[in-house]
């Protein structure tokens, strides 16, 4: 393995490239330049997969530089099997987003592309940070480009949507900040620890029960808003509806994953006892998202809103998978099969995150394709699109099927793993989780039926042109990813195996009664 600072390149190349695009300006070459930067970043991210050591849960590609000495904040980067797939997802989706904006965005295209490239770099920073304060800075910094993307290139109510989005997420994350400072000071006051923001140190730090619960709640607020979990999800439909296509894709495919990822990186290993004690709360919120939000999606008239709600429901599956660990461990007192099921649940959540990145991205791109032609997202304005756009219809139906979780597509793998694992925890949880297969199918297929099939609804639909080569390329790439992950998920699950195993061990180790599992500790 070469000793290159690949992660730094992945963070700073898009950011510097983004400012480069700003300097090039709207005149000429901005698009080509941006695409070049995005492609280069994607190519640079491939070695992460190729050179990844699958036999260890240790951080890899580590970079370390002292940064702010007075707070012991370090520029500490590294990835494991959990963050690596998400970085690849991010670099891949950004290429598509640049292509998607190619002809569609007429207004200040260089700023548009620059915002996405800067966003890409910052999000890579979020996934690669091993220092909690570096993570927080990236986590917050992410808001700025997205705020501008929705606000400048969005729809009619874009200002309301973007300010709501910003304030919601900012509100959540200030509690994260307080918790991190608390942990930092706790480390300074604990024997054998130093005041440090290093995530690895925080994961080892012993914490009492009450602080754990408060910290867990603030993590839940910070990351729950980002995921978003019911009931703090209401910013998402607004943001999605108003955002330009590229913004929606990034929002659904990437930023929601940040919340899920942060649960794995922070909530489970840092405050395992509180997570074990309050897992019912998260399970309840996740199941509500799956069932209730699914029904909400059913009645939407706006295509983007429908997909937005379906995103919330699918992300409910992710958090469900992550937090099933505790109830599985409880029901089958720490034997080897429970370990395997806990891993299965968590892995299912991870696969679901990646797969949802592809599928929701694809769904929003499809809606973008329609919107560019018809300038409406109202479902009733469509009907019989398949007659005029057969190629598009084929893609749309494929992605819709993936969204419902059809076997053979990536949507099936994650959901199946989570549902399978949930039977080990509680039959009722499993049954409620399984309803997604029906509800998800209902709203997605009904959408397909109303938009794609049937007779040609009106004159505007009759004049539709099928997708261009550019659109074909981006949809085909996603279709390939969805099918590949659906038919052969092993390359993905392989890389995360060791890290997930390590994480489950950490999540089950009590920090109150050292050396015991959280399940036992709770009964003390």
């Amino acid at each position: 393995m070469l000793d290159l600072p690949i992660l730094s390149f992945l963070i700073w190349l898009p950011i510097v490239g983004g400012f480069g695009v700003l300097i090039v300006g709207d005149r000429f070459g901005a698009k080509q330049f941006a695409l070049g930067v995005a492609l280069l970043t994607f190519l640079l991210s491939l070695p992460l997969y190729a050179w990844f050591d699958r036999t260890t849960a240790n951080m890899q590609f580590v970079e370390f530089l002292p940064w702010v000495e007075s707070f012991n904040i370090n520029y500490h980067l590294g990835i494991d099997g959990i963050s690596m797939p998400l970085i690849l997802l991010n670099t891949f989706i950004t290429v598509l987003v640049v292509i998607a904006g190619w002809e569609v965005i007429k207004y200040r295209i260089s700023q548009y592309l620059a915002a996405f490239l800067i966003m890409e770099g910052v999000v890579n920073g979020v996934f690669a940070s091993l220092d909690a304060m570096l993570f927080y800075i990236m986590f917050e910094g992410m808001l700025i480009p997205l705020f501008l993307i929705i606000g400048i290139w969005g729809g009619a109510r874009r200002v309301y949507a973007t300010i709501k989005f910003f304030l919601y997420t900012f509100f959540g994350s200030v509690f994260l900040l307080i918790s991190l400072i608390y942990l930092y000071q706790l480390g300074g006051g604990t024997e054998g620890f130093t005041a440090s923001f290093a995530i690895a140190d925080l994961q080892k730090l012993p914490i009492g029960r009450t602080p754990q619960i408060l910290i867990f709640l603030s993590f839940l607020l910070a990351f729950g808003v980002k995921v978003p979990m019911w009931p703090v999800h209401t910013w998402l439909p607004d943001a999605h509806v108003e955002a330009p296509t590229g913004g929606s894709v990034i929002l659904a495919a990437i930023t929601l994953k940040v919340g899920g990822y942060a649960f794995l990186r922070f909530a489970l290993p840092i405050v395992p006892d509180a997570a074990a004690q309050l897992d019912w709360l998260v399970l309840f919120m996740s199941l509500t998202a799956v069932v209730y939000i699914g029904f909400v999606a059913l009645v939407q008239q706006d295509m983007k809103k429908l997909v937005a709600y379906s995103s919330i429901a699918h992300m409910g599956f992710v958090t469900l998978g992550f937090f099933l660990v505790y109830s599985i461990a409880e029901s089958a007192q720490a034997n080897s099969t429970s370990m395997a099921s806990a891993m299965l649940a968590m892995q299912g959540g991870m696969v679901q995150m990646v797969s949802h990145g592809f599928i929701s991205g694809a769904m929003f791109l499809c809606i973008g394709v329609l919107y560019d032609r018809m300038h409406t997202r109202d479902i009733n304005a469509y009907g019989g699109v398949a007659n005029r756009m057969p190629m598009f219809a084929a893609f749309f139906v494929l992605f819709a099927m993936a969204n419902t979780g059809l076997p053979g597509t990536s949507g099936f793998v994650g959901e199946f793993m989570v549902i399978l694992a949930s039977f080990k925890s509680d039959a009722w949880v499993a049954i409620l989780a399984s309803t997604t297969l029906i509800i998800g199918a209902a709203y997605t297929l009904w959408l397909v039926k109303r938009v794609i099939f049937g007779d040609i609804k009106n004159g505007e639909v009759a004049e539709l042109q099928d997708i261009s080569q550019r659109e074909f390329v981006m949809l085909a790439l996603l279709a390939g990813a969805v099918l590949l992950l659906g038919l052969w998920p092993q390359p993905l699950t392989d890389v995360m195996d060791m890290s997930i195993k390590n994480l489950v061990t950490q999540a089950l180790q009590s920090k109150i009664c050292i050396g015991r599992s959280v399940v036992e500790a709770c009964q003390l």
Partner: protein
Amino acid sequence: MMNIAIATPEIFLLSTICLILLMDLFLGEACRMVTYLLSIVALLATALLVYSSMGGDKITGLHDMYVRDDLGGVLKISILLLTVGIFVYARKYLREQDLWQSEFFLLSLFSVLGMMVMSSANNLLVVYLGLELLALSMYVLVAFKRDDGRSTEAAMKYFVLGAVASGMLLYGISILYGLSGKLDIAGVAAYVSVQNVMQNIPLLFALVFMVAGIAFKFGAVPFHMWVPDVYQGAPTAVTMFLGSVPKLAALAMFLRVLAESMAVAQPGWGQMLLVFGLLSVFLGNLVAIAQFNLKRMLAYSTIAHMGFILLGALTGTTQGYGAALFYTITYALTAAGAFAVLILLSREGVEAETLDDIKGLNERNPWYAFIMMMLLFSMAGIPPTVGFYAKLSIIDAVMQAGYLWPAVFMVVLSVIGAFYYLRAIKMMYFDKPDNTAPIEAELDFTILLSVNGLLMVVLGIFPSVLMGICSAAVVASL
């Protein structure tokens, strides 16, 4: 012991001011530029003198009236350099608004001298002396646009309230003198350290008056009433000066009077300032939302920021003082930049002061819009701008001192505060401009503003150096 040398920078500045004052008499309208350039040279030379005299030690002199230490040095250099920047910004405004008079520069220089005296005072009366020199120059500066009713009204308000506040401070000092017979800071500190502060009613009584006087200078709630009116009424160039540099002097006054001479009485003044600080953060952020006049909005935002500074300072720890110093310096830099953007947008005879004036700035000039966005994000405390580190260090100090719930309160209100900064950014980026006249500024203005805005990001990414300077100065001097 006399040791006049420790006051060299102040003596130099005073002599130069007198010289400029005299020269200006003989220079006509056309040569005003000379006065301007001389003022800048005087400030830079003084800053150099201060820098060369900083030695990490603490030397008192002039019969123990005066002290030279690193804290004073850092404060003075920040004050001087900020004032240079403000003069450059102000030139455009004064020219366009027909206020191109040398009095602006001379009065500002006098107030800078006052602030330097405050920063180095080793005696409560010297603090008062510096404060009055600052305040009297400020009253006149606020009334600088003398045929404008609002400017005069603001000056009257400022004068009356300021005089009351000065009186309160002086009254507090006199009670303290009656109790202890001391006015020098070391003497007062020695007296206070043997008292049981919370039981000593006369001492607490003195403390209340002194805290009130200091809180007025900060513009902290409930002594904040003058801030919005003065900010709005004063000519923008004066508001820019008033809204940035004197905050450093207020902090200097706090550090000399409360932190240095009454460190032991922290439980007494800490409680009062906790209430003032929390109220300031609360009221400042909430009321700013209702403001559509940008100057008033920035005034309320200042109140909120001063709340943060007070909360950091009231912890009574060197960590807290260091954080407050860092916050004040970066805030003054941010505020100066934000007002400079207002100056940038005003034209011949027209002042830019409402939110509408920044509408569509991104379409008129993306670079200035970016600068302003960075300034606003820094005020809101969003990383990667320096405002984030300022807030982080304050909150860290506050939590370290055991005030967990005030810290939670502060961050929640900073979310509320983010709303009005976002609204301003929304105006710049998402709205169409009402006015598409090109934005013109001279090269030095443009460069300085760009540097100012970029500093928000640069200091936000590399805060270590400035943080280190601030905490080292505090540790060495208090």
